[in-house]
Every structure is written in structure tokens, then in C-alpha cells.
């Protein structure tokens, strides 16, 4: 199938500085793609390049089978939603929605139809006569989405649309956007630095860092099999526990030798056979550390010391020290732990990741 949006050999530079260099990205029709990364990673730059809002230095942008590299944003068949809403402040909601259509000389009937459809979808009909200054943040962002909607675009671009909202509204609107995508089935490209938004919304996530796409995969793959240390550390909260160590040969295949402990690697879901005699880093998510009773009887069980406990309602986070290393563990709430308690732990190797210390890539 022909991709809905295709970015080929993209390079963007400011002066001598390449912000993005030789980037490739294909997005299938109807896909919800999230560009995720820390600030300054180039995700917004990439989105703006797709929209045609910034000059690119090299490469091509294709949308719906058409080379739009030199086209104006309005001719690309896109709708866009901005972080600051970017509503026209002196116009009513209705005018905000219809202004672009009126400038493009659509018929009155057509404009009215499109506006009322968008208003219905987003449930902003009661707000149509109001000015943006009289709307709440959530309402403003709905209007901004509506403005993208009336354009009947093939592709919707979202530039951190929820970042200016408070936590509760963010959750509400996140659900709303997902619902919208399920209803419209349009291609959506969504930029965020919030991993929860990315994991919940995306069909696929492109994790970006330093102007490059580090990993482009489905959310669970990104979470469970991060392709390198950056992705592993960026996704997940609290962050993955890392242990420096070395792979050595053992009786039943390679063994990980950490500082003060060793564990067999049976069941490890790797990219191929593991090498031996190599410095590596073992990464285990807090919920994949077997703890207390779960750890009892496991191979490579060791004893760690509780430093502090953070009960979070549904579960608890326990911070432990083990020799020099510190690690966090997610466990069911119920039993309380006190500082100084000694508890056994072990690692669920089937869901762990092993990275090459040199290249930081997953093995």
C-alpha cells in the first residue's frame, strides 16, 4: 500500500548545524504515529517540515502519493493543531473554524455543513458564538482541533497539543483524540514528550533523539524491547534499572556477571545468540524485578536492603540498595517495608534487556 506520508532523505540545517540529517519515515494510511522524544530532539522540526512550515535543506516530502516538497502548507491536504492553540483571538469560535474556508471561497452552504459537523464531533456547538478568551484551555484545544477538522484533511498533525493543559484535562482530551482517530480513520502524526500519551495513543511510536529516529515500532515493542539504552531509559517511569557487568560462558549458555551477583540468561528474548566475554549492561524494569516472596527459590536470588518505600495506591515503589547499586522495584501494595529491611530479589530475565556497553545497542 502506498504510504500516506513519506519523508525521504530529509535534511534540515540551520547554518552549518544539521538538526535533522538523512531521515526516512513512511506512515501508512489511517495510522496514528507518535513522534516522541525529549525537547530539542527534532520532533517538532520534523512535524513542521511535513507541514511545510519550515524550509528543508534536502530531501522530499510526499503526502497521499503527491510530492509536496515545494507546496504551500494549505496545498498539502493537512490540518494542524498547535500547543498554544493559536486561535485567532478576536474572532468567535465559528469564525475561527470557518475563516480558512471563507478565504478559500467555499460556498456558504459548504462552510456551514463542515462547521456544524466539526462542532458536532467535538461537542462544541454551544461555544460557537464565544470568543477564545472566554473558553477554558480544554475548550480552546477542542476548537483548535475543530479548525483542523473542517479542512477535510487527509493528514492531521498535532504539535504537543495537550502540553498546556492540566493533568486531568490532558487525560480527558487524550481519550477524545483517540476516539476521534477511531471515528475518522485519518492519518495522524502526533508530537509529544509525554511517554504516557505516546504509549496510549500510538499505533506506532517513533522515538527521536539528536535528530534521528532511534526506534520506530509498536508501543509494547518499544517498551519491552527497546533497541538501545536511550530508548530504554527514556521510556518507563520510574526508569529501567541498569547494572554494569560482563557476559561469560557458563554451563547452560552465557551468564551475566554483575557486581556481586551473577544470573543465568535462560529465556532471554534477544536479537540472536548472545556473545561471551563482552562488557554489557543489564536492564530490568522495576516491575520485572522479582521481589520478596516472588524471588524466593528463583535462581540467582540475592538479598537487597530497603532504602525507602513510596506507596502509590494501586501498587508501591520500593527503592533498594544492593551493594553499590541502587534499584527500584514495583510491587503490589499491602505489605509495608521499612528502611533497613533485608529482602530477596531476582530478575525476570525473559523480559529484561541486555545492551552492549560500547554501542549501547540491545543484544
Amino acid at each position: 500500500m502506498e504510504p500516506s506520508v513519506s519523508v525521504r532523505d530529509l535534511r534540515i540545517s540551520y547554518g552549518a548545524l544539521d538538526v535533522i540529517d538523512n531521515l526516512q519515515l513512511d506512515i501508512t494510511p489511517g495510522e496514528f504515529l507518535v513522534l516522541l522524544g525529549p525537547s530539542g530532539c527534532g520532533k517538532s522540526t520534523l512535524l513542521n517540515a511535513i507541514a511545510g512550515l519550515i524550509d528543508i535543506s534536502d530531501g522530499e516530502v510526499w503526502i497521499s502519493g503527491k510530492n509536496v516538497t515545494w507546496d504551500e502548507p494549505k496545498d498539502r491536504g493537512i490540518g494542524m493543531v498547535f500547543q498554544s492553540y493559536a486561535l485567532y483571538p478576536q474572532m468567535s469560535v465559528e469564525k475561527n473554524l470557518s475563516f480558512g474556508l471563507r478565504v478559500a471561497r467555499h460556498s456558504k452552504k459548504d462552510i456551514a455543513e463542515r462547521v456544524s459537523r466539526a462542532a458536532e464531533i467535538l461537542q462544541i456547538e454551544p461555544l460557537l458564538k464565544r470568543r477564545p478568551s472566554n473558553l477554558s484551555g480544554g475548550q480552546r484545544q477542542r476548537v483548535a482541533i475543530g479548525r483542523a477538522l473542517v479542512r477535510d484533511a487527509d493528514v492531521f498533525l498535532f504539535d504537543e497539543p495537550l502540553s498546556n493543559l492540566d493533568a486531568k484535562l490532558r487525560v480527558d482530551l487524550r481519550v477524545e483524540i483517540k476516539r476521534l482517530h477511531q471515528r475518522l480513520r485519518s492519518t495522524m502524526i502526533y508530537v509529544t514528550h509525554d511517554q504516557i500519551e505516546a504509549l496510549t495513543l500510538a499505533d506506532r511510536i517513533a522515538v527521536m533523539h539528536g535528530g534521528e529516529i532511534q526506534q520506530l515500532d509498536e508501543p509494547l515493542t518499544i517498551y519491552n524491547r527497546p533497541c538501545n539504552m536511550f530508548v530504554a531509559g527514556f521510556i518507563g517511569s520510574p526508569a529501567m534499572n541498569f547494572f554494569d557487568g560482563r557476559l561469560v560462558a557458563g554451563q547452560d549458555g552465557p551468564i551475566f556477571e554483575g557486581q556481586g551477583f551473577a544470573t543465568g540468561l535462560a529465556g532471554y528474548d534477544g536479537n540472536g545468540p548472545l556473545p561471551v566475554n563482552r562488557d554489557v549492561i543489564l536492564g530490568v524494569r522495576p516491575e520485572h524485578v522479582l521481589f520478596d516472596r516472588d524471588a524466593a527459590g528463583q535462581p540467582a536470588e540475592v538479598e537487597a536492603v530497603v532504602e525507602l518505600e513510596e506507596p502509590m495506591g494501586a501498587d508501591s515503589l520500593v527503592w533498594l540498595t544492593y551493594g553499590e547499586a541502587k534499584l527500584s522495584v514495583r510491587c503490589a501494595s499491602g505489605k509495608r517495608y521499612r528502611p533497613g529491611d533485608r529482602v530477596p530479589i531476582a530478575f525476570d530475565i525473559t523480559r529484561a534487556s541486555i545492551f552492549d556497553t560500547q554501542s549501547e545497542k540491545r543484544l
Partner: protein
Amino acid sequence: MTAETQPRGRKPRRLTASRIGIYAFLVFAAAFFLLPFYVMIVTSFKTMPEIQQGNIFGLPTDFTLKPWSTAWAHACTGVNCEGIRVGVLNSFEIMIPAATLSILLGAINGYALSFWRPRGGNLIFAVLLLGAFIPYQVYLYPLVRMLSKVSLYNTLPGIITVHVIFGLPVMTLLFRNYYVAVPVDLFKAARIDGGGFWTIFFQLMIPMSGPILVVAAILQVTGIWNDFLFGLIFAGRDHLPMTVELNNIVNTTTGTKAYNVNMAATILTALVPLIVYFVSGRWFVRGIAAGAVKG
């Protein structure tokens, strides 16, 4: 389609008509604004016979520095031929204490009004605010009478007082708006640490007022230097500021008009504010924005 027509990379920039139009407008506007300055300078280096030929825009053919020395030391106002140099000194004598005092008073006012909320503070603020907009003509005569009563009329302290009085609204407003933006928690913390009115002012507020002090200085230095009205009425014969001297020299009714000397004197008078303008750069714009009394 050939590969050549396939759009790729940066969109080729064409020098469109609108681009040319923008630059044409800007260049014309720049020429319009520079023209008077150009005319001033070339005129000041011409001899009178050359000026009589009427090529006001032409470069001097007979270059001379004489008009400048005349303007500086010998230009006449009526029978008095001492040049503009007297006015320079007077202007500095007026400007330096007047600017310093009005800035200091404005800072104290702004600080007291925004943090201490003294009784009647709103009244002071309202009167000063309104006072800034009312034409000076309303105050002049009673002020002359009041100053004569205390023997300050036509004296140096008198003209300085007048500048302080009428600089007060803008200065108060400037500092009040600046201090209002300072987190009140900072002030509370200083109070808890035992700071009194003056301690907090001199040790906390003044050190963090750098930017606004610069803006205030720019406003007051250029404003007082450029003043004509107060200098004319309150300064008295011995302390006439440069602007008044300049107008007297140029618009003197005796003798033939020496346009070259006039222009040299005009440039000399404009020099101090122009230097302030070019040195301060963006600060001057900030001063304008602040002087725009946005609440």
C-alpha cells in the same frame, strides 16, 4: 516527468515583486528619515556664498569648518555673541542634578507605592498619572508665582525643581510598574529577615533595579536635554539651556541669517541625545515602551 522537475530540497527562492516592493519602501523611508540629517551636515560645512546659490542637497564645494567654530564660540543672540557653548554647560548643570533627583524620587515612590501600600498611595498615583497627561500650560503661572515666593524663580535650583516635579509622574510609573513585577515573596522574606523600609530599598531593590535605572536615565537625560519650555520660562537669563540658546541664535531677528552656523549649532544641540540613542540601542526602545505608560 524528468528528475529535474521533481521537487526536492529547499524550495527555490525567487525574488518576487513583493520582496522588491518591501525593500524599495524601506529604502525610501530610510532616505526620508536621513535627509534632514544629511542636509544639516552638508549645510554646516558650506560657506554662505555657496548656500546662497540654493543647492541645499549638494555636497559642499568649498569645504569649511568656520561655521562650527562660530556656532561654538561666537554665534549671537541679540547683542550677546558667546556662541552655543554657554548653553552646553547650562544644559549639563540642569540635566545632571535634575535627572539624578527625579530618578531617585521616582524609585522611592515606586517602591513605597508597590510594596508598602501607604495611606493615600492610590491618590498620589492617580494624581501623578493624570498629571503626566495634562498640558503644562495649566501649571505654569502658579508655579512661577510659587517659585518667586521662595526666591527660586530664574535660578538653577528653580529649573531643576521644575524638572523634578514634571519628571515625577513618568519616573514613579516606571518604577512602580517594575517593582509590581517583583515577586512579593521576596519582599516578605526581606521583612522576615528584619529589613526596614530603607534597608530593603538600598540593599535589595536598588541592586536589582539595574535595567530600569538605565531606562529611567535614558528617558530623563534625553527628556531634560530636549526640553525647551521649562528652560525658557524658569531657567533665567544666566542658565538658559542649549535648546533655548539654539532657538535664540537661529531665530534672532538681527543681522543676516547664517544658515551654516545655524545648522552647526543645531547638530551640536542634538548631539547629546543622539549619542545616548546610538549608544543605548535597544535600551532606548525599552525606554519608549516603558514611557508608553502601559499599566
